[in-house]
C-alpha cells in the first residue's frame, strides 16, 4: 500500500465526514455564505494537494480545520487595507437548513426557529468566541485539539470557552428561559 493511496482514501473519507463541519466553521469565521463556500473549496483543494504530507495516525479532522483557518487568516491579512464594503450576501438558502425528517412539523419548526436564534446569537459574538463555540460545542473537538488549531495553550481555550459561553448565555437568555426549554432542562 503506498502513501498516496492510503492518504487519499483517508482524505476522501474525512472530507465526506467533516464537510458540514468545515462549512460551519467557515460560516462562523466569515459570516458570509459565498466566502464560506470559497473557504471550503480552497480547503479541499489544499488538502488534496497536501495529502501526501499526512503521517500515519495524523489527526485529519484537526488538520482540515487548521488548513481552513490558515486560509481564512491569510485572506484577512490581505484585505486589511480594503475600504468598507456593501454587504450583499443573501441568507442561507433552503439547502443550508438542516431538517430532521423524523420530526413532526411542529417540532421541526421549533427546531428551525431555535437553530436560527442560536446561529444569530453566535454570529453576534466576537470571532474568537464564535470559533471556539463551534469547535467545542458543535465539532466535539478536545481542548488540546482546539489549542492546536488555534495555536494557543489549552488553558486559554478553556478560559475563552467559559467567557464565550457566558456571553452566549446572555444573548440566548430569552430562549433559555422559555417555558418549553425550562421543562426540557428539568428533565
Amino acid at each position, binding site marked *: 500500500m*503506498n502513501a*498516496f*493511496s*492510503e492518504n*487519499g*482514501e483517508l482524505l476522501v473519507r474525512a*472530507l*465526506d465526514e467533516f*464537510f*458540514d*463541519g468545515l*462549512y*460551519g466553521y467557515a*460560516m*462562523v469565521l*466569515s459570516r*458570509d455564505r*459565498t*466566502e464560506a*463556500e*470559497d473557504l471550503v*473549496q480552497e480547503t*479541499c*483543494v489544499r488538502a488534496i*494537494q497536501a495529502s501526501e504530507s499526512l503521517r500515519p495516525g495524523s489527526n485529519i479532522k484537526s488538520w482540515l480545520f487548521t488548513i481552513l483557518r490558515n486560509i481564512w487568516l491569510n485572506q484577512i491579512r490581505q*484585505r486589511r487595507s*480594503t*475600504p468598507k*464594503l*456593501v*454587504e*450583499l450576501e*443573501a441568507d*442561507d*438558502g433552503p*439547502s*443550508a437548513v*438542516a431538517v430532521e425528517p423524523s420530526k413532526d412539523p411542529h417540532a421541526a419548526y421549533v*427546531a428551525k426557529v*431555535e*437553530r436560527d436564534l*442560536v*446561529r444569530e446569537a*453566535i454570529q453576534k459574538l466576537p470571532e474568537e468566541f464564535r470559533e471556539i*463555540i*463551534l469547535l467545542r*460545542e*458543535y465539532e466535539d473537538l478536545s481542548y488540546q485539539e482546539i489549542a492546536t488549531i488555534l495555536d494557543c495553550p489549552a488553558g486559554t481555550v*478553556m*478560559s475563552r*470557552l*467559559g467567557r464565550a*459561553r457566558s456571553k452566549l*448565555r446572555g444573548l*440566548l437568555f430569552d430562549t*433559555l428561559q422559555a417555558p418549553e*426549554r*425550562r421543562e*426540557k*432542562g428539568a428533565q
Partner: protein
Amino acid sequence: MSHHDEYNDEVLLYLDNALTGDRLKDFRAHIRGCAECKERLEQEQALSLLLRETRPLYVAPLPLRDCIAAARESAIASAWASDDLGEIRSASWKEWLRSFLHAGLNWKPAVALTLIVALCLLFVPETMQRVRATEYVEAATEIHKKYISGDLPLECRSASPDAVTTWFAGKTPFPFRLPSAQFTPAGKTKYSIAGASLVSYKGKPAAMVAYEMGPEKITLLAVSAGSVVAAGGEEVRSGELIFHYRHNANFAVTTWSNRNLTYALVSSSAISAQNPCLVCHQDMADHLVFEHVR
C-alpha cells in the same frame, strides 16, 4: 474575583464528564451548598442542551457538495481518459482510490499513478475555475436582484462614463474600466448609465454599474480577473474576446474577461438576449455583429 469564579473551569469539566475523584466530590459538595453556582450550573446545562439540539449548526449547501464531488470526479475522469483502464473510467474518486488501493503495484498502475497525480493537480484547478465562474454568475445575479429590488442604492449617480470611471478610482483594487472604449459621437443612445456602486465580491471591492433603457434595468459587475476568469455557458467569440452566455434564475448573464478584468452583464431574460450586448456596442461600428448574437 469571587470564590465562585474558582469553579468556572470545574463547571465546564463537569459538563464534559471530565471531573473525577476528589475534584468531583468537592465540586458536588460545593454545588449543594452554593445557590449561585448551582444556578450557574443549571444555566450551563440548559445552554449545552440547546446547543446540542441545534446540531448541526450549518449544513453545506448541496450545490457546494456537488461541486466538490464533480471536481474530484472530473479530475479522475480526465486523468483516465487516455489510459486503458476503462472499467474504472467512470468511477468516482473515492471508488477509484479504493480500486487502486487493491490493485497492487505492478509497473502499469505505478506509471498511471504518476500521471494521475500530475493530472489531478492540473485538472482540479481548472475545474475550480469553472466553479468560481459559476459562483461569479450567481453573485452578479444576486447583486442585480438587490439593485432592481431597491436594496442596493446607487452611490454615484451619473450618466457620464468618465464620471463613473473616475468615481471608482482608488475604491477598487484594480483600475476600473467600462467595457465600452470605442464610443463614437454619432448614433442615438439606446441605453444610458444610471450610476454606480461599490460592492463586495468574495470580500473584495468590486464595481457595479447600472444601466437603464426605459423601465429595463441592466447591471454590470466588474472584478479583477485574478479573482475569477469567465468560463462556462454558451461561448461566442468576437475578435479576441470570448463571451459566455447563460440564463440564471430568470436572468440573462453574459460574462467575459478582458485586460485583467472580468465582467458580468445581467439583464432580465424577458428582453432580447442581444440587447445587453448593445450596452457596449450600441454606438460602435460592430454593433450589427452583436445584433445577430442569440
